[in-house]
C-alpha cells in the first residue's frame, strides 16, 4: 500500500468513526483532478462545480460500502466516472459546448497565461481550447472517458481497468484508438 493510499485510509477511518470534518482532507486532495475530469466531460463550469460537489457527497455517503479491496483513489474515481457517465446520458444537451466559458465578473475566466501584450495570440489560444473541448466532447463515450482518465488524471492502465471494470488489453486498445481519433480530428480542424 502506497503512502498516499494509507493516508487516505487513515482519513476514511476517522470519518467512519464520526469525524466528518476529516473528509475535508480527501476533498482537498482530489478536488482538482475531479473537477478537471468533470469539466472535461460536461464543459460547463457551474455544472461541473455542482457535479464535483455531488461526487464528494456521494462518496462520503457511500464510504461504508468501501471494502478496501482496491485503493481508495480507484474506488473514488469509479464513483466519479460512473456519475459523469450517468449524467451525460441523462443530459444529452451537454454535448453542445458553450462558446464562451468566461463570466462577466471574470471569476471563472480561463486560466491561461497572461498574453495581453499579444491579444491576437490570446484569441487564437482560446479558440484552440474551444476546438479541443469540442473534439474531446465529440469522442465516443468509451474513448473519451478513458482518454481523460489516462491523459488528464494520469491514472495507470491497471487503475483504469479496475475503475471501468474492463480488461487491461481493452484499456490499451481504447486509449490508442481514442488518441488516434482525437489526433485525426484536430488535424482536420487545422490545429496540428
Amino acid at each position, binding site marked *: 500500500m502506497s503512502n498516499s493510499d494509507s493516508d487516505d485510509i487513515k482519513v476514511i477511518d476517522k470519518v467512519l468513526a464520526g469525524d*466528518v*470534518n476529516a*473528509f*475535508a482532507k480527501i*476533498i*482537498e486532495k482530489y*478536488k*482538482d483532478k475531479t*473537477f*478537471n*475530469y468533470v*469539466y*472535461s466531460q460536461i464543459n460547463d*463550469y457551474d455544472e*461541473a*462545480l455542482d457535479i*464535483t*460537489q455531488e461526487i*464528494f*457527497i456521494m462518496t*462520503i*455517503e457511500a464510504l461504508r460500502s468501501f471494502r478496501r479491496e482496491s485503493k481508495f483513489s480507484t474506488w473514488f474515481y469509479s464513483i466519479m466516472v460512473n456519475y459523469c457517465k450517468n449524467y451525460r446520458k441523462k443530459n444529452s444537451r451537454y454535448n453542445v459546448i458553450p462558446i464562451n*466559458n468566461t463570466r462577466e465578473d471574470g*471569476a*471563472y475566466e*480561463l*486560466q*491561461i497565461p497572461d498574453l495581453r501584450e499579444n491579444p491576437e495570440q490570446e484569441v487564437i489560444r482560446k479558440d*484552440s*481550447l474551444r476546438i*479541443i*473541448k469540442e473534439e*474531446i466532447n465529440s469522442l465516443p463515450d468509451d474513448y473519451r472517458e478513458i*482518454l*481523460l482518465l*489516462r*491523459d*488528464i488524471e494520469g491514472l495507470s*492502465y491497471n487503475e483504469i481497468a479496475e475503475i471501468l471494470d474492463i480488461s487491461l488489453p481493452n484499456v*490499451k486498445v481504447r*486509449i*490508442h484508438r481514442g*488518441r*488516434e481519433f*482525437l*489526433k485525426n480530428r*484536430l*488535424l482536420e480542424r487545422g*490545429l*496540428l
Partner: protein
Amino acid sequence: MNTAHVPFQSMSDLYDNDICTEDEREAIRAHFNACLECSTDYVRLERTLQMVKECACSCCPPESLPMQIMRKIRLRRRRKLLAKSIPAMAASVLIIAGIGYFNTGVVPPSRQSVAIDSNIIGLLSDTEHVIDIIRKHNATISDVTDSYIEGTVPLASFKSLRRDLGFHKVAYVLVEESNQGVRDWGSAVEEVGADDVNYRIQGVPDTSVPKRYIRFRVYR
C-alpha cells in the same frame, strides 16, 4: 532498419513509456529519424495530448470548493437525522397529547364505565332514599327487586307515605292483614306523582273490624 511505418499503437505505447524492451524503443526512434511521416505523426500525437492537458488545466475550481462541499455534507447529515427522528417525534407528540387530553378530563378514561357507574350510583341512592321514606312511616318492606320495592303500611300512614314518595310510581291494594300476600296485582290502583293520589279513607276507622293495611309497590 525496418522500413515499415510505425503503427499508431506503438507510438502511443512509446508516449506512455510502455514499450518493454530498450531494443524496441531504439528501433522505433531509429525509424523516426529516417521516416518523416512517422516522426511527424508522433509529434502530432505529442502535441494532441499536450493540448488535452492544457485544456484540462485551463479551468480550476474556486478555492472555496472544499468549504462548500463540507457545508453541504453537514446540511444533508442534519436533514437525514431530522428525517430519521420525525416518526419518533410524531409518536412522542401523540403520546404527550393523549396523556394531556385524558388528564384534562376532555375525554374520560372510559365513557361506558362512567355511565354504568353513575346509573348504579343513582339507582342505589334512590333505593336507599325510598327505603328510608318507607321506614319512617312504620311500613314493613317485604321485597326489594330491581324494578320495585314492596311493602305493607297501615292504612292511616299510607297517605303521608304516598306524599313523601313524590313522583315515584306506586301501585297499591287494600288488604285486611299485614301479612297477607297479594296474588293479583292486576286489581291494584296505579298512579304516578303525589298529586295524583286519590286514595280516600272512607269514613272513620272502626276498631271492631280487622285492621286494614295498604300493600304497595314503589316502582323505580
